[in-house]
């Protein structure tokens, strides 16, 4: 297992995701002799996990069962231990596409935070790219390094514990893309520009507040960045459900052409044993509240020097 390469069989030391039901998942580290408690009972790593295929069903000690899944950055994002507010898949997907990340890309990121975006970047740039990630907070930087090692991706990433606004990313002229998720991104634009390759590259800054966006756009313009563009993306989830709608009773049908027909001409399935009194519809409703605002994404291009 690794976060950048699929494998078939669970091995000792792997990080796996236990699926207990909708919105109830947890990551665990597979260790010989260890046990993990779930709502359906205990899972014994040695007998229930090691040697089993990813995606199989595991019966727990109380008789209930769970699925054991191969980790992906997307699963990690919803299950990782939060040290900071994180970026979610919807934003991550757009960042990845608009920074044109692909295998071989060299990317600079700050701050590392809880590593949500970092894992996605690593998955996309593997096996030939590299991520230079800068984290101001010493403990978080240390924790990130630890996780990258456990997830078998440390060969693709360099973590630096420093202040990106003062000291930059630690490299110059080799990045295809720079990503900023810091309180004052306009202070890091000079360093971002010098980190990017001479032939040009892309930059993205993520900020929750519009004032931050305004100052960042100004800084980007001052530094000669082009195609500056700010957008926001929101995901709407549709609740698929089956609903039963009752039909009206217009009284028994008369011969005249004016008679209202019952809903016998409705093409939907009818509920059996209830006569013609209801109809089943399969539909999807948007949730009452849509996903909230996460932040504004500002993209720009550094042209060739």
């Amino acid at each position, binding site marked *: 297992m690794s976060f950048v*390469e699929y494998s078939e069989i669970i091995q000792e030391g792997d990080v796996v995701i236990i*699926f207990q*039901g*909708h919105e109830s998942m947890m990551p665990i580290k597979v260790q010989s002799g260890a046990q993990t408690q779930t709502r359906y009972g205990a899972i014994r790593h040695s007998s229930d996990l090691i040697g089993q*295929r*990813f*995606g*199989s*069903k595991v019966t727990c000690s109380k008789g209930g069962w769970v*699925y054991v*899944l*191969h980790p*992906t950055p*997307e699963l990690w994002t919803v299950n990782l231990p939060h040290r900071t507010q994180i970026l979610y*898949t*919807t934003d*991550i*997907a*757009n960042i*990845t*596409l*608009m920074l*044109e990340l*692909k*295998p*071989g890309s060299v990317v600079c990121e700050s701050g590392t935070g809880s590593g949500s975006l970092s894992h*996605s970047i690593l998955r*996309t740039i593997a*096996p*030939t*790219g590299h991520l230079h990630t800068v984290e101001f907070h010493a403990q978080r930087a240390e924790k990130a390094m630890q996780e990258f090692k456990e997830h078998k991706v440390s060969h693709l990433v360099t973590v630096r514990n420093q202040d990106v606004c003062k000291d930059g990313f630690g490299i110059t*002229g080799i990045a295809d893309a720079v990503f900023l998720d810091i309180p004052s991104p306009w202070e890091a634009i000079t360093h971002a520009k010098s980190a990017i390759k*001479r*032939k*040009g*590259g892309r930059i993205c800054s993520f900020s929750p507040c*519009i004032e931050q*966006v*305004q100052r960042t756009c100004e800084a980007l313009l001052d530094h000669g960045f082009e*195609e500056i*563009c*700010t*957008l*926001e*993306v*929101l995901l*709407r*989830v*549709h609740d*698929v*459900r*089956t*609903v039963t709608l009752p039909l009206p009773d217009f009284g028994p049908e008369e011969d005249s052409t004016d008679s209202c027909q019952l809903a016998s001409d409705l093409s939907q399935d009818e509920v059996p044993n209830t006569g013609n009194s209801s109809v*089943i519809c*399969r*539909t*999807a409703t948007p949730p009452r509240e849509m996903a909230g605002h996460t932040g504004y994404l*500002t993209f720009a291009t550094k*042209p*060739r020097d």
Partner: protein
Amino acid sequence: MAESVNDSDAESRISFGDYVVLKRGDVFKSVQVENKKKVIFEKQWFFLDNAVGQLFGTRFEIEAGGSLKLKAAKHSGDSLDSKEAGQDNRHILDDGKSQKLTRDDIETLKEQGLKGQEIVQQLIDNSTTFKDKTEFAQEKYIKKKKKNHLRYDTLAQILTLGNIHAGSKILVFETCAGLVLGSVMERMGGFGSVIQMYPGGGPTRAGMESFGFPSHFHETLHEFPLCKVNALLAGTLDLSEKDADGNRRSESSQETSGVSEERSSEPQSMEVSVDPQEEMRRVERERLREQKAQEKKVKMEEKRKKLASAAALLEGRNADGLVIASRFHPCPVLMGLLKFIAPSRPFVVYCQYREPLIECYTKLREQGGAISLRLTDSWLRHYQVLPNRTHPVLLMSGGGGYLLSGTTVAADAAKTRNQQKSEEPVAKRLKLDEISSA
């Protein structure tokens, strides 16, 4: 394909055969650079020949006669240029003044005697911004052809939710002119394999060419016809050597050339023509017939080999992901192709409309084998960011189509237990049970 740390200019120069992106303001178009070939862009005809040897990112003017001329350096303080730099921030809903100024400037320059010339700002950009421009250019192309309207934020979700990455084995079924296929291949970086399932005579890949992949990428791309899926699943797919008529091939070439050989052997039994020129022509015709038969044989063999290699990749039923984005009803496509996917792998289905995906969702719930099903669409809002004039400008919602995503799990024999893990609220679940057992 590693990015070289050494920033050599040579690889950033335009060559014949390259696919490039023409840009003027917010309009992009993807074209191939060919010798003395006219291209049309923004209602103008011109040749790209003079761009060869120049760096990507260069600005050109179009001269009378359609040839390109290098434009003066952009930091010249030209008022038009400074407006261009700010132009991207202004988007559509500006106060209108700056746009008018631009037009006035152009008019002024015309008056100054540039005759047939028009000042056209054109950037031919390289891969640093190639991708998103390819998306925009392809989007316009796709809209025109009234095919699937795939918005780039939807494409972004597909690639990420599908965990598309180097080294995996991905199945793709799309009718988006190769845009989805190309995007998947770009994220694979030439590692792993992509199997394109196709519905009719052959796979459509027009859009994929514009990505300009190096040739070794094409070795990772396979194709397999949908009409042979059932045979493959049943284990009855015939991959032995046959000719077009379905007759077994023998060592002799006579059988394979079929009718043409018979015809060519006929003249031997006829009266020999006296005219030597007539004889020469007859021999030539025979030679051509045999040549064509031989070419056909080679093509058939190539096709057979391709089919066999794709089948070999599929029959293990251990693909790492599935992407569907087509005008076909997604439900049967999804249910059919999921059989080739390993457990604990993501799949993503795009559809312009919601109802077919609701069917897929329902079917998957009944059948089992998939978890974390989500039906989503994304909203995209652009902002104009200017001092004292910051506000949203454009909201794109609904028109980007819908996605159904999920993760495969080991197929479940016990259907009732699977329904207990249903993600639907309790009250509704009861009705579903009643219905399916009726």
